[in-house]
């Protein structure tokens, strides 16, 4: 059951990713990515990360991707603008090989890591309250920094988006 879900979601995630990098139309790519992100959200849920699962849907699928799609639509690219100059086969082969090698290497590295907590997680693992408590106790400084970064981003975006600077 669990394995079936995992492989289903993993396949969807990988398929979405592959589609995203391969389709020509960025909007199609964006929807492929949404598929991938939603599958990942499912995986998060499988990992008992309830809060992160919701955030994944809320923030990634619901906000970031909407923003990207919104931009795609806003730019309203014409066909010829969407067309990318053809990329050489050599480059494709080289990049793909390198990435494959990298993935293989990363898998090798990950393979050496031993899990040490395979037991069922404790009560309330991954819920909003637990994450929130951790975030505002042990991680409060990073938390504040992140909030500052977001503020800076907001100001930066507003400035950038103004027609006349």
């Amino acid at each position, binding site marked *: 059951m669990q394995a079936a879900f995992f492989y289903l979601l993993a396949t969807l995630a990988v398929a979405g990713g592959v589609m995203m990098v391969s389709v020509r139309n960025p*909007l199609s790519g964006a*929807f492929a990515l*949404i598929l991938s992100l939603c599958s990942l959200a499912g995986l998060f849920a499988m990992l008992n990360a*309830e*809060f992160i699962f*919701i*955030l994944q*849907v*809320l923030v990634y*699928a*619901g*906000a970031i991707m*909407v*923003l990207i*799609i*919104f931009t795609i*639509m*806003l730019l*309203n690219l014409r066909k010829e603008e969407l067309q990318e100059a053809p990329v050489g086969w050599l480059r494709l082969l080289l990049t793909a090989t390198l990435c494959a090698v990298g993935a293989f290497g990363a898998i090798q590295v990950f393979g050496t890591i031993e899990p040490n907590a395979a037991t069922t997680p404790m009560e*309330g693992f991954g*819920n*909003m*309250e637990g994450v929130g408590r951790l975030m505002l106790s042990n991680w409060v400084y990073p938390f504040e920094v992140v909030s500052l970064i977001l503020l800076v981003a907001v100001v930066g975006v507003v400035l950038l988006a103004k027609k006349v600077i």
Partner: protein
Amino acid sequence: MVDWIDFAIIGGKAVFIWGFALTLLPVLIWFERKGAAFIQDRAGPNRAAILGIRLAGFIHNIADVVKLLMKEMMIPPHVNRVFFMIAPVLGFTFILTAFAVIPWADTLNVGGREITMQVANLNSGVLFILAITSLNVYGIILAGWSSNNKFALLGGLRSTAQMISYEIPLGLALVGVFMVYGSAQLNEIVRGQGELLFGFLPKWGLFVQPLGALLFITAAFAETNRNPFDLPEGESEIVAGYHVEYSGMRFALFYMGEYVAIVLASAMITTLYFGGWQVPYFPTEKIIASADSWLKVMLGVGGVGALAFAALMLFWARRMKIGGGFGDLRDKEGIILGVAHIAIGGAMLFFFWKTLSMGPLPDWGARTVAVVAQITSFALKTIFWCWVFIWVRWSLPRFRYDQLMRLGWKQMIPLAFVNIFITGLVMLWMDR
């Protein structure tokens, strides 16, 4: 381990809540039509009938369904076919998913089994709803873009911007609720609203979070693209917005999606600010303790009400007859409805009479009575809010786009922050 009974129960619950939402659909449409007619001082739809039964135009919905099903589903050239076809489905499905976390009654204890009256008792249920509704925008955006129509695109863009903008005050208004009830779990929130404030006022979100409630309701209107925020489909500006190219059942899906969204928004408003399934002044324990009386009152009032309605119907039928009538089966409608309600009322009074001689209810019976009472409470509140949606639509004019954005960003978001701040201050002062 999840065994089959659990699955069955979950399935049953899903069927129930979806059934509830979808049943409300025709009711809403009927509300809309009749409400519009009422406000515009006209009759509204009243022709469609089955064997003469019109149910004050309710049957008109069936005619609509038949019409939409029979219509040709046009796919214009130059559209992105895949997205064009997916788009309506997306909007509808996501909204239905969100109902999974809406609680409609207190937890039911039957045979040692605790059944929560919501499909998924998520720890952060409110956020789940937010997440799912934020996905809702894809349907609109996709429809707008794939239609390859400038009005549709403009509608999609407007819709996206509007929904993203109003999600922020929506979420921020919720923070106050989280703070007051100390949870993001909808059932907990509702349970928290069962207490009394100052001894006489139900501790509803409306009373502890008045500003938050106002903000939330406003933002919910915007999220559902309802008037006065229905810019995406503003017919006087961009024809019909994102669904201008749609027809037939696809168009119907958008339409239904909008109404389901209204139901969801109403359910949310009810759950968060109007006590959800709580019957005012009667928390669950109290209802269970006095389940006998509740049963008697419900049956008695129901029976008498049904008889009174039947009398009204019969009286109306007689007036029709005196006035000459339509000359077809429609003339018989009052008699049919009256007779039917006499039967219903009689049955209820019969059961009422039976309960008088019956001993105290068994535990499960009492609990069931409580659940029924709570479901009724929830349903009534939700329907009331649905009606408010209709009411507002036909009462208020539409915003201009820049006014919409200014309201969202410059007034509602700061007010939401003020709300959080005040809530925090008050909580500090009251020391919880």
